[in-house]
């Protein structure tokens, strides 16, 4: 059983009074294994939030199916073990942090004694223990996001869906979210999160899917997607076609940047010296070279830009 599964999921928004329909999600197929921390990535407007809204049952799909913890998305059984932090979080801000968590615990059908203990625990986890008696209205944006995270995990859910959980957080807050994610992972929970901070994602996720225009364009385990591949920035006295040709024999991709600079992509670190030899043999005057391991950001930009072509 997948923690999340979608089959040909589709959502078309039709403006009420004419206008062009917008296809936000377009035949999306996704499989999230239980127990993983899953990064759901994509450029602005790719359809991430819309997909998440379908998964939690707030939005109805136009076509296709979505399953959450083995139940149809939106079913009570699916929602029982699901925690969610919305992207545009806005809570009942006339409640205090504690009252707010108690309300959510009750809505999640927790019993009184467990709930009280759990409130203390999660407030501690998100670092708001001293502010438990403050009204949410008096919280800063980042503190509100943290109480939102606390709310999402209050009932010890099996699946936690976080739509940009760190958008309002400072670096310390972001580290805390990483710790919470780690805490959930250690307890065997599935975390499905969406973020534009790719270095964060790279540090906490096991698996990612990159979507663009409502479709999955790449999915896999991070360590498989980012195998040893290196990005090499090269500075030459002059970029010439024959040099590029020579490089292409070694590199999987060669891209001139300007008259003096080229970026190349090689499959493994060992290929870098070979690339140098190829440049020299094709008569290039090598001035400088810098190789770094491919990051998620490189992969993201490459995937999304590759799509655009």
């Amino acid at each position, binding site marked *: 059983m997948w923690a999340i599964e979608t089959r040909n999921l589709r959502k078309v928004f039709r403006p009420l009074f004419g206008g062009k329909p917008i296809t936000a999600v377009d035949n999306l197929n996704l499989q999230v294994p239980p127990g993983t921390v899953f990064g759901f990535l994509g450029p602005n407007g790719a359809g991430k939030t819309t997909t998440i809204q379908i998964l939690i049952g*707030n939005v109805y799909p136009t076509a296709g199916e979505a399953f959450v913890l083995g139940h149809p998305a939106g079913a*009570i059984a699916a*929602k029982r073990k699901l925690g*969610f932090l919305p992207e545009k979080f*806005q809570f*009942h801000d*006339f409640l205090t942090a504690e009252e707010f968590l108690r309300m959510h615990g009750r809505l*999640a059908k927790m019993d009184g004694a467990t709930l009280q203990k759990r409130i203390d625990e999660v407030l501690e986890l998100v670092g708001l223990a001293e502010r438990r008696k403050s009204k949410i209205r008096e919280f800063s944006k980042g503190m509100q996001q943290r109480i939102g995270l606390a709310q999402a995990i209050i009932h010890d859910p099996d699946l936690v869906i976080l739509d940009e959980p760190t958008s309002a957080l400072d670096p310390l807050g972001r580290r805390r979210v990483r710790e919470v994610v780690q805490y959930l992972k250690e307890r065997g929970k599935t975390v499905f999160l969406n973020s534009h901070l790719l270095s964060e994602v790279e540090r906490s996720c096991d698996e990612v899917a990159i979507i663009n225009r409502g479709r999955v364009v790449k999915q896999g385990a991070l360590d498989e997607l980012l195998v040893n591949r290196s990005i090499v920035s090269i500075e030459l006295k002059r970029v010439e076609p024959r040099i590029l040709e020579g490089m292409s024999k070694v590199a999987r991709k060669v891209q001139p940047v300007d008259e003096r600079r080229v970026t190349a992509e090689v499959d493994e670190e060992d290929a870098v010296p070979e690339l140098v030899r190829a440049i020299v043999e094709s008569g290039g005057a090598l001035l400088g070279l810098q190789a770094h391991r491919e990051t998620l950001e490189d992969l993201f930009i490459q995937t999304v830009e590759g799509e655009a072509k």
Partner: protein
Amino acid sequence: MGVIVALTLKEAMRRRAFLGTVIILIALYGLSFLPRAFKEAFGGNERQFEVGVNLAVLFGVDIIKFFSAVLAILLCAGAITAEIERGYLAAILPRPLHRWELYLGKWLGVMLFSTANATLWTAMLWVSVAVQGEPRMEMWYALPYVLLYPVLYGTLALALSSFLGASLASMFTVAAGAFAYFSDHFLRPIAALFDVKFLQQIVWLSEWTVPMATLKRLVQARVDTILPPGMDDAPPFGSPEVLAFLKPTVQTLDGVYVAVYITIALLVGLLIFWRRDVQ
């Protein structure tokens, strides 16, 4: 569902709805000066004083009717779409509860609040005539029917709020009420006295559309017993049908129609909320 009811009540408190409660309480207490003033203005005998008490009761019941409906509209009109737009519901709905529980929870919350209000106000009205040495019971007999006002208008506003923002939902509800009032108080006499069939049909139609005149009859049947003599006599002309149209009596099915109407309005709003996207 209890959590949603409690949340709705808290929300009402936060929106200072109780200020409305207090202001109306004071206004109702003010009515206790009416009988004496009435007596002094019209010759000063005990009969006039009693008429003054009766008027205070009738007037007080009208105030309770009107303001409990207004309060229910204000609280219901912002309950669904406005909360979706503010982002409140996005975090509530993923909880294991059905949408109908949320909808009915909100409805129940507002209705409890309205009932508490109207009861408090009725108690105040009772006190304000009782202190004049006239403990009357009519307002208590009318209370169950007076409560139908907030139920009717609150349910309408809630149904509209399932797809309209707070200001539009309250505007349309108030417009519906104003239309029903206009048709009952202005169109009806004109249609009756000049015996215009077409206008009479419009009056009937409007009562079917918003059964406020039906509610008025139900309430009046409980309090009109204390009308001053001569104030509610039929005009001395017109055919029996015209007079019946002008002053319809309570029909057996009036209550049933109102109940069916409220149920349908509730279900329609629920259906719309159930099928719509929340984002």
